[in-house]
């Protein structure tokens, strides 16, 4: 008596599921049922999670935030219809690569700022005007926003910027010379400022 295995499929050949997954995501995207396309982009400041809705870039998250936690948060804040492997994140991934290589000074992707509200959103909308390689103080930004006393609130707005790196809250620093807090950690903030200074100084290409 020899045990005979009914030849039910056991597991798919290597890579087949990845292939099917990609085809499925493309169909979901075309069918309008993919609410958030996500991808992980590696960078000198660690893996960045990027999330793109049908309106634009909605979230950039640092590794220190815990990508799984951020995804779960997006699922409850926006929609659980979240998928990887969509081409929707490709343009941003490419631009991030160029930025970190010192070959790009501003990003050209649509933004979806639904995760920033009220005054914080106003500040986030002002940030792209702070030029590459330059800095402003929290106080200066508060004055630009028309609320010179709201220095602390500007700090909070920068700290909760849903799309860091792309919207350059890292260019907002303390007036005393300290670089201030950063969602991705002060080391990451310093690295971004150094990168931009070096690129402008011609150190990188």
């Amino acid at each position, binding site marked *: 008596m020899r045990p005979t295995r009914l030849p039910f499929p056991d597991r798919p050949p290597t890579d087949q*599921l990845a292939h*099917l997954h990609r085809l499925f995501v493309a169909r979901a995207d075309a069918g309008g049922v993919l609410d958030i396309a996500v991808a992980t982009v590696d960078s000198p400041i660690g893996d960045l999670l990027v999330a793109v809705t049908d309106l634009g870039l909605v979230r950039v998250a640092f590794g220190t935030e815990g990508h799984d936690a951020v995804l779960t948060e997006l699922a409850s804040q926006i929609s659980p219809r979240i998928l*990887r492997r969509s081409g929707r994140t490709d343009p941003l991934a490419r631009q991030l690569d160029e930025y970190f290589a010192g070959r790009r000074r501003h990003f050209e992707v649509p933004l979806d700022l639904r995760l920033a509200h009220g005054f914080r959103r106003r500040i986030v909308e002002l940030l792209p005007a702070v030029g590459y390689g330059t800095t402003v103080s929290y106080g200066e930004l508060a004055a630009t926003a028309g609320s010179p006393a709201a220095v602390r609130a500007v700090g909070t707005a920068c700290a909760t910027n849903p799309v860091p790196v792309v919207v350059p809250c890292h260019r907002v620093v303390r007036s005393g010379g300290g670089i201030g807090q950063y969602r991705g950690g002060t080391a990451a903030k310093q690295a971004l400022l150094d990168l931009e200074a070096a690129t402008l100084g011609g150190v990188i290409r």
Partner: protein
Amino acid sequence: MTPFDDIVRQHGEMVWRVCHSLLRPADADDAWAETFLAALVAYPSLPADAHVTGWLSTIAYRKAIDHHRRIRRHAAPTADLADRPAADDPEPVDPALVEAVNQLGVKQRDAVVYHHVVGMSHREVADLLGLSHAAVRRNAADGIANLRRRLTATTRPAAPETPTPEAPTPETPSSDTPTSEMST
């Protein structure tokens, strides 16, 4: 709520098994995508305490059956499940088994698919289908015996008429562990 991407990652293989147990490769891959598309649409309203495996496997099973019916309806008379696929088309499942599973009665097919292919316990299948534990157990065992009989008949047509080995076959393993192994 778990991002849907994790659901695909966790259950992609199970859905693949269901589709390939009931359909030929090209159709199975289609059904795999259809399953996850339907699931993605419905996902936001899935209750938090839902049995995800049961939910998804039911969608996959239904998609595969629908697909099979559609193929049958539109198939040219010559198109038969026994046709060999293109040489470079990997055949993860014996076409004779796919055919045999499709020919099972609904109760046996349900039990075989949910227990042996999906991998749910007899208890989980019973809860999903609203049947007794014993009924699921019996249907699964009868289904497997039936499949073995059909497969033996197709793969060894010239075999002398030995008595069907089903009778002396020991009871299905008493554990609730799903398995596709049967002793001869």
